[in-house]
């Protein structure tokens, strides 16, 4: 009953520092690339969804969806801003998917954007803490890295996960980013780099954390009929799932897993009719290294508690059993929070089209994206297929 949905165009800015460049300009760069890539005319876009987390707090600008669209000369159509912390644009992708799957629209633009680097680190730290429960957790001094540190410690206690295993995630992702021209970092690191970096929220150190970044990512979604008119290489979104959980960590049954990720993954696998072993590549939400290890487990790439071993054994490297974060991930590609969900989709599209250059995974046919909002209170999972 639901219609098929294709990604027919993608556009990214380089992630990293863009001093004094406003978010509307980052958006425009990515949007024009995506429109050109799709081969559509600007006026063909019928509706738009823009994911962004903190444009009001950081850049002093609210109501950004029509503002962004206007900056590329596109007014009139419905333009909606979705916010789900670091999953703001994963949520936008799902809204765009719904608009087309329902038969309401034929061509939809979905964007993610965030401008973060023109502000002092303590301001950004304070701002990111808005993604945790302000009354009961942030108010006690818990920061956003702190949230994941609490989970890292719980995972270490329960499964014996080590700081070296976490560091290995950063090493792999920095290596992958070497081959991604859009990545913020192009610098190989080793386990020692991570272990000897300064502590941010023990046991997490600077190199366990994704950086503060600016960037925008835009995709053009289309219905089946329209997709076939514009491209011979559509990439199909075969599952779009979203789940929620408590905001406060103290209310979770367990602190070694994201329940919302497990729920969204289960729904997505069912919707796509595939199993974890069928996934060829995955872009997962490694905002902190521990998050990638937990993602392996939540997505069924390994058993619960085996995530540390999976990275240690190289199974998630390019060339391994299930390459994860070929783009460099949030850790090395960069993490302009609102842009991440769409950027993950773009990396999978590049891989499934065979356009990923030196980081290409041969024969990749099915890819998955996993976008975690804030403390894990929102998670979206998408499965794409060429």
């Amino acid at each position, binding site marked *: 009953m639901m219609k098929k949905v294709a990604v027919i165009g993608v556009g990214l800015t380089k992630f990293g520092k863009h001093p004094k460049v406003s978010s509307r300009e980052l958006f425009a760069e990515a949007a024009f690339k995506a429109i050109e890539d799709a081969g559509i005319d600007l006026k063909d876009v019928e509706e738009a969804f823009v994911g962004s987390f903190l444009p009001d707090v950081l850049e002093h600008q609210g109501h950004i969806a029509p503002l962004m669209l206007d900056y590329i000369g596109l007014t009139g159509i419905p333009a909606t801003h979705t916010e789900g912390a670091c999953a703001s644009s994963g949520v936008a992708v799902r809204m765009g998917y719904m608009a087309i799957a329902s038969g309401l629209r034929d061509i939809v633009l979905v964007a993610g954007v965030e401008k973060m680097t023109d502000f002092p680190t303590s301001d950004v730290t304070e701002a990111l803490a808005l993604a945790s429960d302000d*009354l*009961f957790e942030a108010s*006690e*001094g818990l*920061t956003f890295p702190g949230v994941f540190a*609490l989970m890292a410690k719980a995972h270490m206690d329960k499964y014996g996960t080590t700081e070296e295993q976490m560091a290995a995630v950063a090493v792999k992702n920095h290596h992958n980013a070497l081959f991604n021209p859009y990545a913020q970092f192009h610098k190989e690191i080793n386990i020692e780099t991570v272990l000897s970096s300064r502590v941010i929220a023990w046991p997490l150190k600077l190199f366990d954390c994704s950086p503060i970044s600016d960037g925008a990512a835009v995709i053009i979604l289309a219905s089946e009929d329209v997709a076939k008119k514009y491209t011979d290489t559509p990439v199909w979104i075969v599952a779009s799932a979203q789940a929620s959980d408590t905001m406060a960590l103290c209310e979770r049954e367990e602190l070694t897993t994201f329940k919302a990720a497990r729920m969204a993954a289960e729904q997505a696998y069912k919707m796509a009719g595939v199993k974890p072993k069928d996934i060829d590549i995955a872009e997962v939400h490694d905002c902190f290294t521990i998050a990638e290890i937990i993602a392996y487990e939540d997505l069924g790439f390994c058993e619960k508690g085996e995530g540390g071993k999976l990275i240690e054994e190289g199974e998630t490297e390019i060339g391994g059993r299930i390459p994860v974060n070929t783009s460099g991930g949030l850790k090395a590609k960069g993490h302009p929070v609102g842009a991440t969900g769409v950027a993950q989709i773009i990396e999978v599209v590049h891989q499934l089209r065979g356009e990923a250059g030196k980081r290409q995974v041969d024969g990749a046919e099915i890819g998955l994206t996993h976008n975690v909002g804030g403390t894990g209170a929102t998670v979206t999972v998408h499965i794409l297929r060429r």
Partner: protein
Amino acid sequence: MEEAERLVKKYFEFVSEKKFMGLKCKKCGAYILPPKSICKKCGSREFEWVEFSGKGSLYTFTVIHVAAKRFLNDAPFVVGVVQLEEGPRITARIVGVDPNKPETIKTGMPLKVTFIESDEKVLLAFEPEK
């Protein structure tokens, strides 16, 4: 009914008086913290305020070195999730431990409630049970 929802304000009034209070479900007897507008166990919305024993154990913790602006002067400090005797867990500052020696802080260690002042407010905290 309108008054029944104003639980968060009440909770923090108790904290500011250095009282560690929580909700108890009138129907199933479950203890609830942080305050919620519904008992997740039985769906009841009838509660009473009860004083918690303040006893618990350390479930997990972190040491914050890079703090948000309003807590810059406190860093480094320990934040932990505390398993309370009554059932719920709560996130709080952990004091009376050395933030510079996290290896000496043990999950599972017995704790008791205390209160500290930071950011011109009273914060919930726990310290090792002697």
